[in-house]
């Protein structure tokens, strides 16, 4: 084997040169300039923030927590970029002097993070990728000088590059486990074996190639306040006062093709703390008119401690909304959106009566009468409410073969007194027909073993009774036929 002629081709040759040393004596300025901070360089300096909690394969793309962190980071520099799922990049060269240098900046940023209850690691490097890699390496990484970059990166494991596992494994096969070892590989050979994309990654890492980063912008939230020219406690007046705010919200949302799931109104009073009025929606809404309607319903039931001087509208985070055009038919008309109007009714009822007040009934496939139905939130899939027992399967029990059941079941079966082995309920009962035997439900601790009978009481009412199969064979009333 011949000794390779070329190694270490990643020397940071084309990094921006450091600015020329400043003159020893500053010329006296003809007019007073604000005292400018002395900056050794205008070359960018990147601060990488790594949030270990957000790492891991289970993490989605950009999490809320990361957005919050990025928004906070904007306090330090306008040049913030996201590196999902667990990193944020700050370009801080020009902010250093504002925060007392590297240490001061670190302390301030760590303080912010502590406030957000996030543990983070920080690293400084002349390139964004190196800053990220440095933070992930879990060791102090403060490279302010481009000349020291490759040396500082050398002991960092290649895994910090977040290359595909397959690439990492193939590098391991070469005995290459650190970035220093990668950087010593021949360029052409490396590109040939691992692809030019990986080579570009390395060039960006050491600053041989530019690495543009998209600037982070915090998503806007809608928040408007309106001072009233009068004090009012009338809900109609308040509704009218809110209307222009809602119209603005509508425009705001439409422009972004978004909707909101929650709204909050605050009403300011002279002495009392502001009254809050929250509105939650079944699906993302952007229609100002709908929102006004719903808010209107809500305001009717709102109790105000004293007249209102100002109102404010705050919308929740805008969320993506399924767009649809207006229907041709009016609600209720043939082909009109009966389904949609059903949802509207439910929403209106919810707003009026409270979230929990609206329920629907659903059938449950279970042989036990008391377990054969349940309450459910409206809008829950109606599919589960399947009809009668299926006709297929060797176990199927057919319609023809099962006895009718009453629609009205007692909430709890009522124990019946008995006389001579037969039940009594406000007098003697006449048992009719033949028993239906139900034995099931052992899996949830409500095992039943009963024989159901139809019976007529002295008034001729038809009742549904059962007799427990276990001794002492108690009798219960379970339902009444209409």
């Amino acid at each position: 084997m011949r000794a390779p002629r070329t190694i270490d081709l990643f020397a940071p040759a084309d990094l921006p040169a450091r600015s020329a040393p400043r003159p020893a004596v500053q010329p006296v300025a003809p007019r007073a300039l604000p005292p400018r901070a002395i900056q050794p360089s205008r070359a960018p300096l990147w601060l990488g923030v790594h949030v270990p909690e957000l790492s891991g394969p289970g993490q989605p793309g950009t999490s809320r927590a990361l957005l919050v962190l990025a928004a906070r980071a904007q306090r330090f520099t306008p040049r913030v970029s996201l590196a999902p799922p667990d990193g944020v990049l700050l370009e801080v060269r020009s902010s250093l002097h504002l925060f007392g240098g590297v240490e001061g900046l670190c302390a301030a940023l760590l303080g912010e993070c502590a406030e957000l209850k996030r543990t983070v690691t920080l690293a400084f490097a002349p390139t964004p990728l190196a800053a990220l890699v440095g933070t992930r390496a879990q060791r102090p990484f403060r490279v302010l000088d481009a000349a020291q970059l490759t040396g500082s990166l050398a002991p960092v494991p290649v895994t910090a590059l977040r290359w595909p596992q397959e690439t990492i494994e193939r590098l391991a096969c070469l005995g290459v486990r650190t970035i220093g070892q990668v950087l010593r590989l021949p360029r052409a050979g490396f590109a040939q074996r691992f692809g030019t994309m990986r080579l570009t990654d390395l060039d960006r890492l050491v600053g041989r190639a530019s690495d543009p980063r998209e600037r982070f912008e915090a998503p806007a939230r809608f928040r408007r306040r309106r001072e009233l020219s009068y004090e009012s406690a009338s809900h109609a007046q308040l509704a009218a006062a809110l209307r222009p705010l809602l119209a603005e919200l509508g425009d705001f949302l439409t422009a972004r093709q978004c909707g909101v799931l929650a709204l909050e109104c605050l009403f300011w009073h002279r002495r009392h703390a502001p009254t809050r009025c929250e509105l939650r929606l079944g699906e993302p809404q952007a229609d100002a008119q709908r929102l006004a309607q719903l808010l209107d319903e809500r305001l009717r039931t709102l109790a105000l401690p004293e007249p209102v001087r100002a109102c404010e509208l705050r919308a929740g985070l805008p969320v993506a909304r399924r767009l649809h055009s207006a229907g041709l038919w009016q609600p209720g008309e043939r082909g009109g959106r009966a389904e949609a109007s059903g949802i509207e009714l439910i929403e209106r009822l919810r707003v009026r009566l409270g979230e929990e007040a609206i329920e629907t009934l659903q059938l449950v496939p279970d042989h036990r009468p008391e377990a054969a139905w349940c309450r459910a939130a409206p809008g829950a899939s109606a599919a589960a409410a399947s009809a009668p027992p299926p006709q297929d399967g060797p176990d199927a029990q057919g319609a023809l073969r099962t006895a009718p059941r009453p629609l009205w079941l007692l909430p709890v079966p009522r124990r019946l007194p008995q006389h001579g082995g037969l039940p009594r309920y406000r007098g003697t009962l006449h048992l009719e027909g033949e028993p239906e035997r139900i034995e099931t439900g052992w899996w949830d601790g409500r095992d039943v073993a009963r024989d159901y009978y139809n019976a007529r009481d002295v008034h001729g009412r038809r009742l549904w009774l059962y007799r427990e199969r276990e001794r002492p064979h108690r009798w219960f009333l379970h339902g009444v036929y209409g």
Partner: protein
Amino acid sequence: MSSRHPSVASGAYAELHCLSNFTFLRGASHPQELIARAAELGYTALALTDECSLSGVVRAHVAAKERGLQLIIGAEFRLACGLRLVVLATDRHGYGRLCRLITVGRRAAAKGGYHLTREDLAATLEHCLLLWLPGAVAQAEEARWLGEVFPGQVWIAVELLRGGADRAWLAGLERLGREQRLPLVASGDVHMHVRSRRRLQDALTAVRLSVPVRQAGWSLHPNGERHLRELERLVRLYPPELLQETVRIARRCTFSLDELRYEYPRELVPPGATPASHLRRLTEAGARRRWPHGVPASERTALEHELALIGELHYEPYFLTVHDLVEFARSRGILCQGRGSAANSRVCYCLGVTAVDPQRGAGLLFERFMSKERNEPPDIDIDFEHERREEVIQYVYAKYGRERAALAATVILYRARSALRDLGKVFGLAPEGCARLAKTMQWWDGSEALDERLRAAGFDPEDPALASLVALARELVAFPGFPRHLSQHVGGLVISAGRLDELVPIENASMPDRTVVQWDKDDLDALGLLKVDVLALGMLSALRKGFALVNDLRGTHHALGTLPAEDPEVYAMISRADTVGVFQIESRAQMAMLPRLKPRCYYDLVIEVAIVRPGPIQGDMVHPYLRRRQAREPVEYPSAEVESVLRRTLGVPIFQEQVMQLAVVAAGFTPGEADQLRRAMGAWKRSGGLGHLRDRLIGGMCARGYSPQFAERIYRQMLGFGDYGFPEAHAASFALLVYDSAWLKHHEPAAFTAALLNSQPMGFYAPAQLVRDARAHGVEVQPVDVCASEWDCTLEHRDAGQPALRLGMRLVKGLSRAGAERLVRARLAGVFSTVEDLGRRTGLERGDLEALAAAGALATLSGNRHLAFWDVAGVERPLPIEGATERDGVDVLSDAPRPGPSARQAARPLLAAPTEGENIVGDYASLGLTLGRHPLALLRDTLKRKGVRAAQEIVTLGHGRAVRTAGIVLMRQRPAAAGGVTFVTLEDETGQVNVIVWERIAEAHRETLVSARLLEVHGRLQREEGVTHLIAGGLIDRTALLGALLTRSRDFH
């Protein structure tokens, strides 16, 4: 309907629609339970009508005969159109048609399912009675069709199950019956023998639908009425004539499985000959080969006796069948050998089925090879080379056709693991929870208490749902175990003269090109059907390869059974327990026995093979035998008869045959009863005692003048034998292979090791131990090398002594055989100069090249593994893109043309060479072995600091010493017979340590014991008769240290 049989009592009833648990995941009772319950309730008859299956009928048949209950054979079907019915066989012809119908349905669908149409039904069924099962809404059309196609054979089944509208349902069916002129009959849609199986039945339904039981909803039965109901209840529910009709139908179904008469295939006899004359001709021809100087007089008498017995029982075709298979194998050069009682007959010796020379066996083996009284088919298992057995199976299918030959089934039973996994889902446990639960229960047999284990695994045993789960699991696992599905037997082939599918239904196996009958081995035995076991044996493959290597090298003509017999050097090696790789006697338990037993002749090997089995160990036969063998205890017999049975084993029963013979000579059993005893021995542990056989046995011995102590001891020994007694007949054949493999190991260790490596996977040891052992015996082992290796391991000639063993590319993980062979072909054209050259000339896939690099097989071309990977990664890739090339230091300054391959070769990086640790780890990962140092050698300093001693040191320490040691876990075993003890073998660079882990310690360190690859053990030494064990007191998982081999090497640069 008027009763035409006034004698029928008003309460008489025959259940005509009854599923057992062979309708998998529907029926919730064993056939035996159903029969027993039906008999108890006084039923006139019971029809077993599993869904499109007769898998349970033989068990039911045997149970029904015992109970004196009439069993009707039938099956339930759901046709593709939705029509449901029960078919009952009236006679042999009807039974044959039923079998064919099931076969048609099963063969038309994937394994486990069936597909039948009305046309199939109309075309196939004759001599059967049909019960129409009306659907939820009775379809008159179905009834009409059935009535028209099968006039006079169709009934409407009335199943009143207390749905609340039984009367209306009955009235509706009566009306329908009048309209369609079909009679009605009562039936019960029975799914279980007693009501209390309701929960299990619900749970099985949920398993079938793979939903949690709470979501199974309407698919569950509303109540538990589908059991065998008491007659008085039925009388109250059904009109009397419907009940009487069941009895009338039962009377028309006269078929019994006893009528099945099996006929052997006839085509093996040439025209003009009879089976007897043909067998005699073949036997005589063989005798001339075996005894070229004339058959000795004693052998002649024995031969005549055997032939007479075979003739009397008409077993000639069976022997001809076996002979045919053996001949086929021989013609293809496939090694095979028969074993089993009949296999060790002189007839089989002459036919070449076995090589057990009667004289070598001292004439002791052939006392009983078949018994007239037992009327049981002779038992011959034939072992074939494991890699080539499929050829034999396909030969049988081709020769006899799929209507006449099929594999026997194996009924897969619920085990703790599968039961808990399935039930976990039923109870809605998350998959992770199911897996954890199943893992907890790994070695559970349904009997011991579980609370502790459950708690340890993070479950609350008090939780009612968990308690039900465990209770249901117990029901599934309890003897004889719930069947879960049918699978194929390892090699039992059933061949018949006529249509096999009129004898028993045939279905598809999961393997393509395989078909199986619906009965398992015991079913076939119970009905006296012929089965030839075509088994796969790895050692036969290894021996053929070993002989070939030796013959090639030395010009000899070694073959099975032709090696120089009774070589004392071979026995000396065996007695040293130097038996890694030797057939049968290589296991740890066997190795512990060898120095004590010190085999000196062939028959000692027969005993050695049989004695290290759970049966003799639990029956406490081992120590008495050893004491007598070492003359530390007198050999005495209570009577001459007993002496005749036990003399060859010094008065201690070791073989299964001896136990049965003892029952005959000492307790007065008939051979038939003795056979019953053998079966009972297999099952007593799970069914609880031998019961009445015990009284017969002890009583019989006492009556014949044996002391009660002796009788009791024999009885206990029999109990201990249990399932695990080994027949002498099998041991005798195995012992031949033991000798042959030991001979090869002693005289030709290189060839022996190569043959074993080339037959993997097989045997007890992994390649690492085999290679290690070969090197310990002075064999030079060469690494896998693309410049020298073939696919198989080969021998390289050396001028003196043993040849060197060159490891083959078959050891390389991830390398395709086709790729390796292409490489070997390309190499014929000239040596490879570089990896680039190799890649170009072989056109190997990237995966194959990387596998070779990982194996270190490119070392000759590349240097080390790292460079090999670099070279491999550069082979045959598209040329680099411009941007990358122009910066390459080679040509960025000079305007040289783009570099050719050699220039690229030159631009190799300065990669750090792998460390020794990395190389060892790499070797293990790819080859499973290393020719470098043992990994523990690298860790020795670390271990020493922890006070851990090497295996070699331990050998020098005394009994009772407390020690710590650590090693790679070679194997863990938990033999059923060892009473909860786990045996672990550790290996370090100096040798092996055998560790015994008692149950208490095992429970306390479960996780470590099951998963550690590098294990540290603290314990005390136990030393007995030259055998050393370490009794574990504590276990520590040191697997992380192995990983450290890599990690540390990383820190070095």
